């Protein structure tokens, strides 16, 4: 796992890793405990500023904003992880078929990928939620498909590149079937690019969930969500400006962490950068 060490060596990567770990830890803790009940309304203590009892203050119906933001980490982590998994599967599947299948399959898949890329995640989500109703599942599926297609395009190029390298061809020549060739040779080589894309997809997932929940297509009212909180609070932002900062910052910092981690990962695993480092030492 030398790449992990490389990533942590960079300040950006270390920052990203720390925030991600904190986020996951908060999410796990939030499953069992939050400082107060995030949904408990208290009409006598509305719109309070930050205090010892309410670290982030309270909202329009008296809910403790800190507890809500804390509870919403569950949603965020869930969406980020599941979306990435779906995106990975979709991407890998499409890419493998699109790169290694027989000619009559490759061409249509290539066209399909290029068309699907034109469908932004938001439009897919709107379409799906019109059909399936607004839910986290909609968000996860939409991000999974939307970003999965992006991953497919990147991965397809990588797979084709690797599949043409000398030693893979040698492997095929010596009798390795196409599937074994894929798992033994191709996958380990595209792994770095792949993992980077996954980290970025987590960032996209969090942003999408925020935007979709804001529009009403994401988390239902019973599920705590930063996007939803933003939607609730933004109507009163001119009167109570501080409140929107908490969910907004939470989203920004999380996405930033995923992006920084992904960037550091990319730098650590990019073979080109590695060789240029060697060149400068000659």
């Amino acid at each position, binding site marked *: 796992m030398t790449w992990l060490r490389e990533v942590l060596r960079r300040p950006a990567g270390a920052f990203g890793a720390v925030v991600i770990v904190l986020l996951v830890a908060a999410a796990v803790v939030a499953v069992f405990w939050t400082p107060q009940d995030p949904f408990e309304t208290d009409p006598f203590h509305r719109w309070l500023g930050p205090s010892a009892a309410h670290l982030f203050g309270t909202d329009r119906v008296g809910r403790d904003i800190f507890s809500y933001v804390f509870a919403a980490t569950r949603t965020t982590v869930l969406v980020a992880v599941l979306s990435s998994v779906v995106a990975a599967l979709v991407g890998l599947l499409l890419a493998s078929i699109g790169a290694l299948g027989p000619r009559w399959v490759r061409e249509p898949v290539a066209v399909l990928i290029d068309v699907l890329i*034109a*469908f932004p995640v938001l439009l897919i989500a709107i379409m*799906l*939620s019109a059909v399936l109703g607004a839910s986290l599942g909609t968000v996860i599926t939409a991000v999974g498909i939307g970003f999965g297609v992006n991953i497919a395009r990147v991965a397809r190029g990588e797979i084709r590149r690797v599949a043409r390298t000398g030693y893979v061809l040698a492997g095929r020549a010596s009798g390795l079937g196409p599937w074994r060739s894929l798992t033994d040779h191709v996958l380990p080589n595209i792994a770095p690019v792949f993992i980077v894309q996954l980290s970025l997809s987590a960032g996209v997932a969090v942003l999408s969930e925020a935007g979709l929940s804001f529009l009403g297509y994401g988390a239902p009212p019973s599920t705590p969500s930063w996007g939803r909180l933003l939607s609730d609070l933004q109507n009163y932002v*001119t009167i109570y400006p501080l409140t929107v900062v908490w969910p*907004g910052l939470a989203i920004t910092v999380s996405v*930033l962490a995923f992006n920084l981690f992904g960037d550091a990962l990319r730098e650590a695993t990019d073979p080109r950068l590695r060789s240029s480092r060697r060149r400068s030492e000659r």
Partner: protein
Amino acid sequence: MLRFVAIRVALLVLGLLVAAVLIFLTLRVLPGDVAQVIGGTRATAEQVARIRTGLGLDRPIPVQFLDWIGGVLHGDLGRSLITGTPVATELGAKLAVTLPLAGLSLVLGLGLGIPLGVLSAVLHRRVGGFLIAAAAQAVAAVPVVFAGVLLVLLLGAWLHLLPVQGFPLDGWREPGRAFASLILPALTIGVVEGAVVLRFTRSATLEALGQDHVRTAAAKGMTMTRALVTHGLPGVLLSVIAVIGLEIAALLVGAVIVESLFQLPGVGRMLVTDVANRDLEKVQSELLVLTGLILVVGAVVDVLHRVLDPRLREQA
């Protein structure tokens, strides 16, 4: 070259067709019943059935699809299932808001992102370059919604500079006010997308900095900076053009969100409302138009890129 354009147009048409099929099929799986929505909660099963037949919703799916596509090709995008008004006319009015919004956002995004991206690459060994890059990273992570709210606070409420919400009822007949209402929303999208463009431009410029031909140019009789600007930048701009196609999709997504946030009567907000109303005819045409826009811009960008890069010009 002509051959490439022809193939690209064919791919565009194919893409539009696939998009239309995907949109149509997905929406037809709809569990909600428009006829029920129109009829109201107290309508009898008979009345609902009559409404459904009247709207042509009981015909076989392929027939409905061909009917829709046929209409689209003639400019008839169907009628709202709920109000009966033709989709095309309403769409036209909304596009008059969304397209300028997207255009302004693109201009702002490129205008901010490209120069700052180049600058941060040229200064990459100094604090200034690092700060710009770090700021761009942070801004790119901000959800459009939050950015919009912050801008409303900064420029709208506290400084009272610009109209905060809404679009003048007279629309573009009052161009000054109309344009002013688009500035904050466009700035919201523009700043966030500009950060993305900045990071891309920065990495492209960094690559250009190390390129051999830039060094050759300097060796001819220039400073390294001039060599970078005259020989390195054109290559950078070329790769930015390739990215613009993807940016358009992000811009339209941003438009959907800011239209809701800033109460702008554009296609995005219309889409959100129509989905809530389960107004199938409108939703499918709106989605087709939006996706079509993205695909068309993508095709135009592809051709442009091909024309401008001599290495690609003669390939089949």
